[in-house]
């Protein structure tokens, strides 16, 4: 079993506020990253992901708790001594050096021959498609090129850990898709342990082995993409992961001979006893109110006990996004074929038991996912 390359133990980060009071940016974080693993810190702005990355890098002090890198406690160690390579926003290129020299600078202490250094620089520049700008100065290249150069500078080093802050934020979608694949291959081939921060789920999904979803300074769930999507631990993760977001509704539940979910102000879904396994029924227990969720792709259109008015029908080239008015909210269904319906039409819809997620109304914790208890 591979050792933990990075261990975050009960870490808190509190910023002393000026006039506004202290900000508790990271709350009691526990996380282990294995060697060779690629981890994404995913969340909206202010969730604590950047503070966490900066603490690992050494740019911020840890208020409580420990950061352990390769078995060494590094809380007091300055960033330069941690053997960590970084590509951070604001950690920009040195203006008086060309891009090539900037990247090579990172290898200064590596004691390789000049030829090896040039070769490493050329390799990483090729992967990130910045060969044309190698001999230009940072002020004369575009934002996207600067970002890739900064990334190259981090990746060319041999380090225990690679920390990337929104590595492709400045790039347009076309380039992003291409570079993602190459970056992933590079990280995997060289068995690099990497942690990157992003607010873009597609990026997190494409690059990471496991994703840590954070919100309000608290780690919500740290799991593979598959688990986050199919078995979210709470309502936040369920509605955060996945585009478009999961449709959720408060509902009364009757857990008797049949299992009935009556959405407040909306349709009722009846399931026979045989449709819902005992483990799920046990998880729902004696509750009479729950929150039910169903992903947009899982809605069955055209038949079922639901009936709603269509508010919008958008065809996006390879998929259809249909929005319907249910229980005072907009419910979204996605289909990979155009849906022949007009705004204002009514459409029937249904959901099968295997696609239903159930959450507790007060704690938001997941109770069941489809045919399995949480």
């Amino acid at each position: 079993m591979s050792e933990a390359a990075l261990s975050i133990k009960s870490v808190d980060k509190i910023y002393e506020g000026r006039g506004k009071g202290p900000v508790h940016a990271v709350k009691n974080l526990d996380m282990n990253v294995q060697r060779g693993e690629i981890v994404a810190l995913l969340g909206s702005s202010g969730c604590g992901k950047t503070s966490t990355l900066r603490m690992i890098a050494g740019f911020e002090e840890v208020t409580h708790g420990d950061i352990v890198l390769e078995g060494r406690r590094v809380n007091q160690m300055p960033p330069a001594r941690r053997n960590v390579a970084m590509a951070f926003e604001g950690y920009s290129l040195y203006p008086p050096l060309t891009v090539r020299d900037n990247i090579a600078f990172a290898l200064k202490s590596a004691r390789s021959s000049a030829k090896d250094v040039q070769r490493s620089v050329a390799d990483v520049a090729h992967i990130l498609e910045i060969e044309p700008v190698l001999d230009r100065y940072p002020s004369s290249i575009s934002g996207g090129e600067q970002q890739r150069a900064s990334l190259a500078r981090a990746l060319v080093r041999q380090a225990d850990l690679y920390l990337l802050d929104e590595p492709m934020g400045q790039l347009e979608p076309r380039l992003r898709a291409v570079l993602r694949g190459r970056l992933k291959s590079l990280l995997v081939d060289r068995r690099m342990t990497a942690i990157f921060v992003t607010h873009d789920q597609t990026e997190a999904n494409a690059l990471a082995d496991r994703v840590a979803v954070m919100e309000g300074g608290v780690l919500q769930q740290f799991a593979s993409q598959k688990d986050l999507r199919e078995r979210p631990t709470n309502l936040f993760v369920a509605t955060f992961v996945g585009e478009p977001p999961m449709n959720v509704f408060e509902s009364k539940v009757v857990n008797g001979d049949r299992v009935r979910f009556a959405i407040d102000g909306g349709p009722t879904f009846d399931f026979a006893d045989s449709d819902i396994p005992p483990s799920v029924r046990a998880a729902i227990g004696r509750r009479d109110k729950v929150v039910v969720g169903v992903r947009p792709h899982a809605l069955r259109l055209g038949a079922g006990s639901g009936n709603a008015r269509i508010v919008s029908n958008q065809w996006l080239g390879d998929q259809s996004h249909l929005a319907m008015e249910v229980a005072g909210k907009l419910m979204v269904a996605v289909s990979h074929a155009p849906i022949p319906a007009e705004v204002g039409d009514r459409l029937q819809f249904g959901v099968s038991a295997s696609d239903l997620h159930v959450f507790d109304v007060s704690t938001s914790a997941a109770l069941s996912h489809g045919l399995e208890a949480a």
Partner: protein
Amino acid sequence: MANLEIRSVSKEFKTGKVLDRISLAADNGEIVAVFGPSGSGKTVLLRLIAGVEQPDEGTILLGGRDVTDQAPERRGVGMAFQNFALFPHMSAFDNVASALTAHKTPPESVRAKVEKIAALLKIEHVLGHAPRELSNGQKQRTALARALVAEPKILLLDDPLRNVDAKLRYEMRLELPSLLKASGSTVLYVTQDYKEAMALGDRIAVLSDRDFAQIARPAEIYGRPATINVASLFGDPTINLIPVEPLASSTGPKIGIGGAALSLPPGYGHVTGKLGVLGLRAENIVVEDTASQESVPVEVVAVTPLNERTLLLLRTDDGREILASEAGMNEAPRRHGPAFARFDPEAILLFDPASGRRIAPQSA
């Protein structure tokens, strides 16, 4: 309301020409999405129509009247800016009301109109706050309210959802079309997100390389893009572009990919013997375990699960990389290794490499 027309408008800055004799006509009440990569001049176009910048040449007509030389405050246009541009020293209420106070509207009328639009955009409870106290989503709605409150004939929206978080952006993408239609204004909606353009626009004007590459309905732009550039800008993942040379054969035009000979629809018979670029969208490629008549042997090199789709990176025998996309999340995800790729010949696009323009198949 009014229609909007720009004729042969050009604009040049010290850094170079940004717009080169472009023309566009929007009908009364139409929503035209202006789409293009960053730096393509979309914001400049809006500023020219609003009147805060002057074109070097060309005419701008609003409601049939030539307004090219008219000051912005006379044009009767509503505008929402990318970074909101709210007045920091005024409350949200005063920000929205500023579009009415210029015309000496009586205070009761101002209050009524502001409250009505605020209710529609769900910001009635924050009207008393200063902009810095509002969340991004609230700022964006306040900026929209300011643009809409005077019921302008022409509405210019400069990427209003850009600085708003993903979830809110999606919600607004669903709500905006009906809101805009209800206002009755003719709308120019600038965006860098092709899905937003397709979702919101009655027509899309694709701005790239200083001119409109194509102005058409969304389905047309996606299904029959005018150039390679337009084809690459629409679609996620980006369209596969493969250099090919169609050859005539007894069974019609054929192309060679990865060692296999694949049929093209007969309509492409007129381009045999010439170099071309094949455009193939990822969702139109089917990956199977067994060979069939028109399939290409490939190796599945990478499998990336994305939003309710699986992306497959395929490599042909001659080293070409092709992206294919399968709908749904497979229970048993495709493994790496040999497979076969097949596509529907009717779904392909063919482009002329020299001009970048699409070659239309000729009917028999």
